[in-house]
């Protein structure tokens, strides 16, 4: 009884890349979806149909890498702070506007802002954790959800006020250049792959790799892992858990910001652009296991593929329909549900 109020818990932060078992389930679902498409579509057996399928697969794979990166940030924040950050997408939008201002206003190459935007967003995220989120730590989950949700509305409307709802975009002068013998956009079997999408995928994987290395090799990363596994245990070995929470929220936000920079050259930017990323990351994080960083990356790629294959199957409808079917199936099939560890 003297132990009442002791906050002991078994954390779920996973910072190594396992391929979780559910991956095969989703891959199977994707194959079924594609096969379904060849049944219902007259197009499917023609050469044009094969091109469309190839296009969907490449587009899905490339955007999936970015989805994975965004979701890694969200999963990291959950793994250490045990809060679902519903403002994650809004932070991504904010980062995109920041990059847009730096690129369009100041004239910096959008990709060069990778050295600036994530750093600034790290500070924003850290400050938000310290001032807004931290007082709500230890409160019921609903309070934290509402708080971060309110934060997202606040950010979206502030952006609306500052930049209006006019769609913005950045131009890359070299999007159609050729590098040596390789001409962009790339054409593979009729499918067209634009340079910015390739950069986003490769860049996304690079940032993901950097995050993995940081978490698994550095001293601060070690402290983050400890706090994500057992908060009390971490404090008893000398980790300042409060500071680690501030750092982690900043880090998760910076990762989303890097993804924002990477997608800006091929998306139009509006104050609500982050919403879809937000919803998808949530789905991905649940799929990959809350707090499982590697699961988020793999889940992101699979959800990217699902979305594009879904677009084939339900043309003109929401591409997200099959994504949510997979989401709901996951909740039913994973007995540990939302809070399952995922990979083991």
């Amino acid at each position, binding site marked *: 009884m003297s132990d009442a*109020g002791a906050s002991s818990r078994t954390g779920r932060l996973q910072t190594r890349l396992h391929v979780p078992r559910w991956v095969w389930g989703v891959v199977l679902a994707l194959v079924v979806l594609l096969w379904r498409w060849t049944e219902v579509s007259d197009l499917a057996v023609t050469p044009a149909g094969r091109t469309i399928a190839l296009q969907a697969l490449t587009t899905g794979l490339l955007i999936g890498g970015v989805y994975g990166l965004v979701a890694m940030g969200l999963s990291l924040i959950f793994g250490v702070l045990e809060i679902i950050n519903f403002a994650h997408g809004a932070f991504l939008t904010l980062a995109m506007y920041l990059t847009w201002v730096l690129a369009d206003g100041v004239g910096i190459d959008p990709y060069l802002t990778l050295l600036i935007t994530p750093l600034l967003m790290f500070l924003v995220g850290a400050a938000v954790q310290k001032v807004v989120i931290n007082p709500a730590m230890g409160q019921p989950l609903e309070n934290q959800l509402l708080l971060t949700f309110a934060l997202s509305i606040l950010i979206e409307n502030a952006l609306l006020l500052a930049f209006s709802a006019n769609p913005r975009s950045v131009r890359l002068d070299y999007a159609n250049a050729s590098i040596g013998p390789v001409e962009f956009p790339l054409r593979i079997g009729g499918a067209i792959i634009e340079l910015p999408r390739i950069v986003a995928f490769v860049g996304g994987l690079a940032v993901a790799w950097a995050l993995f290395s940081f978490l698994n090799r550095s001293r601060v990363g*070690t402290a983050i892992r400890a706090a994500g*596994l057992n908060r*009390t245990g971490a*404090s*008893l070995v*000398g980790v300042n*858990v*409060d500071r680690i929470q501030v750092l982690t929220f900043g880090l998760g936000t910076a990762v989303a910001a890097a993804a924002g920079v990477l997608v800006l050259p091929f998306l139009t930017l509006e104050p609500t652009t982050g919403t879809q990323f937000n919803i998808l990351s949530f789905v991905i994080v649940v799929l990959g296991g809350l707090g499982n960083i590697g699961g988020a990356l793999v889940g992101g790629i699979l959800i990217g593929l699902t979305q594009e294959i879904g677009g084939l199957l339900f043309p003109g409808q929401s591409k997200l329909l099959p994504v949510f079917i997979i989401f709901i199936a996951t909740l039913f099939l994973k007995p540990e549900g939302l809070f399952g560890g995922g990979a083991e």
Partner: protein
Amino acid sequence: MRRNNLLVLDQVNAGYGGLQVLHEVSLEVEAGEVVALVGANGAGKTTTLRTIAGLLVPSAGRIELEGESVVGLGPHDLVRRGVVMVAEDRELFGALTVYENLVMGAFTRSADERGESLDQVHELFPILEERAQQKAETMSGGQQQMLAIGRALMARPRLLLMDEPSMGLAPKLVADVFATIDRIRSTGITVLLVEQNAKRTLETADRGYVIESGEIHLSGTGDELLASDDVRRAYLGL
């Protein structure tokens, strides 16, 4: 007051939220001693240790480490000052290996110190070297207790706070735990030990305090307390 006090608690009140558990608890621990805090379940033993370790902030009273107030310092600050706790529920990193847990224990220490401590801990608990690559959560209770003590030693404590280290262990392992405490004492580490196993504890300890309903009820050397009628009746079932 005694000289050489490593730790002094003076009239400390503490609790959880609105529930006050400790009422004006005062105790002293000298450098090099093994001091026992015994009492029934719910008497406030764990609360006392958690307050010293910085996991709870006292609502009143003084806590001094070598004459300096440490009230308001977090557990991570106290680890750096040499106060390390082996928690009752061990608070291990279950998904990490034995080796990784020990390395985490030396988080506040340099790589050189870490290597040195690791050798010492392996010498004290050879099983932790044999099971280095096993996940902490897959070990038996007794082995987890050794790991929890080993992890605490990795931080090179001056004052080791031990909360019920023998709890839930088979008699043979309980004997091992008390033998371990003797060995830890011989390395010059001061130990504040909380136990329900009063007899064993008072036999091991230099001095002891008896806590009841959050108040210090009795104090004395281990032998004095063992001989006291109150203690014999209440805690030893004699």
